[in-house]
């Protein structure tokens, strides 16, 4: 486009002002990239095809209320249930109570219900054969430099062992890998120990289970199966609530925070400020160029091409700042994920974020450029030349 040098020159006519405006656009889109990654990671949580097949059954009262182990056999009998397993929250921490580990005490068949978790057959065999064995996710193992064969101490923040001490000891027998890197970040951080060892060792648990996970034969029957499972315990002292994994994750997340709303509110505030700021820049830029725009028209540039040039200038401003900002976000996000020690597993700025970002840049650019461009188009040559 042969007008580009004109637009570029106009944009950098006041270097300091343009650079300042650019910095704020960069900041806004950096924030946008980060927050969009957070939103995406929350959206993706639990949204796998496998997750849709799994039902989670927990106490209706509270998710820390345990359920009797006897339910396992009953759930297995419910029509439509293919497999059932159970687990307990162990609440482990390594060395320091702040080093929380996602540790579950699980039934022997637990992994069978999670095709997203890959573990090699030898490791699986070793786990099944051991009493104090543990399978650990690869991210977790890397974080603490654990290897197969290590004997590692883990503190339970909740459960003491028989001696009354909360210090437990496990033998690492294998490493877990998630097969789906998009949704499976969580599995790479798991620490799985035997429910049996847990149950026998802590006096606080006597044949009780934190939650059941069952796999349904037909996803479309999930709701019916869930109701049937809950019916088993109706009017007992341990009434249950059964939901798909997705619904469970979603309601968990909702309890933490309505991420969508927060992200939306922050972005709204940021873009409102951005609109005012870059709008002001564009307004000033056009006002002080009145005579120059009049000259362009004098020379024979049409009103429409003057309009287009001002709009292009404003869109270019947003694109420059926006692309740098989103690019920075893409560069920084892996660092943020790593810095969180794997607790936060943010996806990098994906194609959809780029698309949304670019659309935002163009939209804000057009919006911000509209009024000054319209003024430039309507500019009366004779009046502008006379300084009226």
């Amino acid at each position, binding site marked *: 486009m*042969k*007008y580009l*040098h*004109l637009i570029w*020159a*106009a944009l*950098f*006519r006041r270097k300091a002002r343009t650079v300042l405006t650019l910095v704020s656009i960069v900041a806004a889109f950096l924030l946008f990239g980060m927050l969009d990654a957070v939103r995406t990671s929350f959206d993706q949580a639990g949204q796998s095809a496998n997750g849709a097949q799994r039902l989670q059954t927990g106490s209706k009262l509270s998710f820390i209320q345990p359920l009797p182990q006897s339910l396992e056999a009953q759930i297995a009998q419910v029509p439509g249930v293919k497999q059932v397993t159970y687990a307990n929250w162990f609440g482990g921490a390594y060395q320091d109570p702040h080093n929380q580990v996602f540790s579950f005490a699980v039934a022997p068949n637990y992994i069978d219900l999670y095709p997203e978790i890959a573990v090699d057959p030898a490791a699986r065999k070793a786990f099944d054969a051991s009493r104090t064995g543990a399978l650990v996710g690869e991210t977790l193992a890397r974080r603490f430099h654990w290897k197969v064969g290590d004997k590692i101490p883990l503190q339970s923040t909740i459960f003491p062992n028989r001696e009354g001490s909360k210090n437990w000891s496990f033998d690492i027998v294998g490493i877990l890998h998630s097969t789906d890197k998009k949704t499976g970040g969580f599995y790479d951080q798991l620490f799985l120990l035997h429910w049996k060892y847990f149950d026998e060792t802590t006096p606080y648990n006597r044949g009780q289970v934190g939650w059941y996970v069952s796999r349904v034969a037909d996803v479309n029957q999930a709701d019916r199966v869930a109701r049937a499972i809950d019916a088993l315990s109706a009017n007992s002292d341990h009434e249950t609530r059964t939901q798909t994994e997705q619904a469970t994750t979603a309601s968990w997340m909702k309890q933490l925070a309505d991420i969508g709303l927060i992200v939306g509110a922050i972005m709204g505030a940021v873009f409102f400020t951005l609109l005012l700021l870059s709008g002001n820049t564009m307004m000033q830029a056009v006002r002080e160029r009145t*005579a*120059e725009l*009049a*000259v*362009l*028209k*004098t*020379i*024979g*540039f*049409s*009103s429409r091409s003057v309009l287009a040039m001002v709009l292009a200038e404003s869109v270019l401003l947003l694109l420059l700042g926006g692309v740098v900002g989103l690019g920075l976000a893409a560069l920084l996000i892996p660092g943020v994920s790593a810095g969180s020690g794997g607790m936060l597993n943010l996806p990098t700025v994906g194609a959809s974020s780029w698309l949304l970002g670019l659309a935002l840049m163009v939209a804000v650019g057009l919006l911000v450029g509209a009024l000054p461009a319209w003024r430039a188009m309507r500019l009366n*040559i*004779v009046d502008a*030349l*006379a300084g009226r």
Partner: protein
Amino acid sequence: MGTLIELRNLSKVYERGRQKVEVLHHIDLDIAEGDFLAMMGPSGSGKTTLLNLIGGLDSPSGGSIAVAGQRLDQLGAGALARWRAAHVGFVFQFYNLMPMLSAQRNVELPLLLTRLNGAQRRKNAGIALQLVGLGDRAAHKPGELSGGQQQRVAIARAIVSDPALLVCDEPTGDLDRQSAEDVLGLLRTLNREHGKTIVMVTHDPKAAEYANHTLHLDKGTLVEQATA
């Protein structure tokens, strides 16, 4: 030579709110092709208004203007812009160059509206700069040039697309004597050697001497006087 510009019963009225100000009254004027015409008159007499009408920057309230047979008063804004691009060059008192573009880029501006490619645009702009004696200043920005040099860049910009007509509104109004004479000499060369028809508004009788005739405008009416 034939007539290039024909003004018939031309008038211009500005409306300020409810008040109407008639700036030009029923002007009849022929300007020959190849003429160099100076226009003088007191401030507010309508010189700029008349020049703007001749250059197709403004439309008359009554009467007609024809330039090379083209009725400007019948053209819409878009057509008028295209007509200006092809047929007129403008020179203003304060040069009106783009401050952030080099002399070369300033002169290339009108060529952006033509079908010439980048290399041809560069070449033609270079020739125009050479013609005004600034071939060695192509890379300079307006801020790095003297007033007289800036005005010569403006003249190069006005002639680069080879229009038949140049309209100049007080082209020496902001220049010292020497620079003014350079610019006026240049205009005379353009008129004599290159056949440009020039209409120039000036307050300076010495500047008017460079022209073939001087017209006097007073309160929107013409008083023609032949110069020696």
